[in-house]
């Protein structure tokens, strides 16, 4: 397995226009923008549901331990507008995820960008803010 887990320090300008907007609940109450995560792992489960789609990945840490992370994205309507379908992610797919970790330091994160290892396809885990802006620019 080449999957790995790396957490890195917050970088200035990390957010900008690709930031995932959480219109539904307070991002800051649940996630910490100062705890960015960069995970690579294998998809174990997908919940294509409102108000947030979640997917789960097994991440192998440097010491060989496998940890299951839960990752929050936008709602299906927002993801559809950003180019996703319910079958974009499948169990067994290897993905890279950029996002922010939960404040309580659980194995939970908010995904901002998801890259599919097989194709290199990079998808924004959009919510309605970013996707309606993209629509506007289309």
């Amino acid at each position, binding site marked *: 397995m080449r999957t790995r887990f790396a957490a890195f320090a917050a970088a200035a300008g990390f*957010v900008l226009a690709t930031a995932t907007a959480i*219109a*539904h609940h*307070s991002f*800051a109450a649940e996630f910490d*923008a100062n705890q960015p995560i960069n995970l690579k792992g294998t998809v174990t489960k997908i919940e294509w549901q*409102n*108000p947030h789609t979640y997917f789960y990945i097994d991440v192998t840490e440097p010491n060989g331990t496998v940890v299951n992370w839960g990752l929050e994205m936008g709602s299906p309507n927002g993801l559809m507008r950003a180019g996703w379908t319910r079958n974009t992610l499948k169990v067994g797919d290897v993905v890279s995820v950029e996002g922010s970790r939960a404040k309580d330091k659980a194995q939970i994160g908010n995904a901002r960008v998801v890259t599919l290892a097989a194709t290199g396809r990079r998808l924004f885990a959009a919510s309605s803010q970013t996707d*309606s802006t993209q629509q506007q620019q289309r």
Partner: protein
Amino acid sequence: MRNGQRIAFIGVMLAVLSTAFWGVGAQQASAPAAGQREGGGGRMSAGPPEPAPRLADGTMNLGRAPGEKGVWSVPYITNMGERVIEADGTTVYERRMATARGARGGRGGGRGDLPLGGGEGTAGGARGGAKSEPQVPFQPWAAAIYDYNSKNNSKYDPEGYCLPPGGPRLMATPYPMEIIQLPEQKRILMIFEGATHIWREIYMDGRPHPEGDALNPTYLGHSVGHWEGDTLVVDVVGFNEQTWMDYYGHPHTDMLHVVERFSRPTKNQLRYEAVYDDPGAYTKPFTVRWNIPWNASGELTEYICQENNKYLQSLTDDFGQPIFGKKQ
């Protein structure tokens, strides 16, 4: 105040004891979000802007032209305080946009209208205790509630519970919406994809608001409308106290009276203005305004917030105890 947010209220009482009521000059370090560009929408075009469509009888059409698609791309406005029209006739948001344009050599209508990116409630960061703003005429208790909501990063925002926004926040929750005019039925419907997939009905038949107990407090209140030229004017009363005015947590009471004005100077722009008059929470009325761009290819889709709201599973009160489920 008979707001159901009892847990929040306990904290407010604590906050009242320790908080200066008027946090003058304590503006937030990070800019709150403008969800998307304002001021026109659509891509830049060389020609003059398209005129707004009209109904067959000449009435301003705030919706689609026959045979076309289109939705209003409601922006994400997290802080109504930034949209309050101040004594000089401008808002904090408008001044910031003007400054941004000036910094780029005065070219207007460009990126100064684009979203600032991030913003509160987004990956842009935490609210971190930003204090009540001087341009909002808070009563002391309302300022204390606001500061409390700021301190805890708006964790008790009713929208996080999948409850609807009330009043002008409907026009500040970033999902598409449509306005459907039914002049033969003397009513107008506004349909919101997000904001808990909700609609509101505006009576255009000249009826008054119900009075006394006949006016049942509701999330969206009781809306009656009329046209003043090409501007739709909607008068709303009968709000319950279960909503916040915005994500930042400006409170209101059931004494809230809102007057909204909708106009469409061009096909691609809805101008929105609302007067908040709530003698229960503010010392005088104040007016907010923003623009809402048209998305000519958009259509509404389904969004059922209540389906799998995991946020509630992890939500804890001020004492670290779960709000829903077994206490530890």
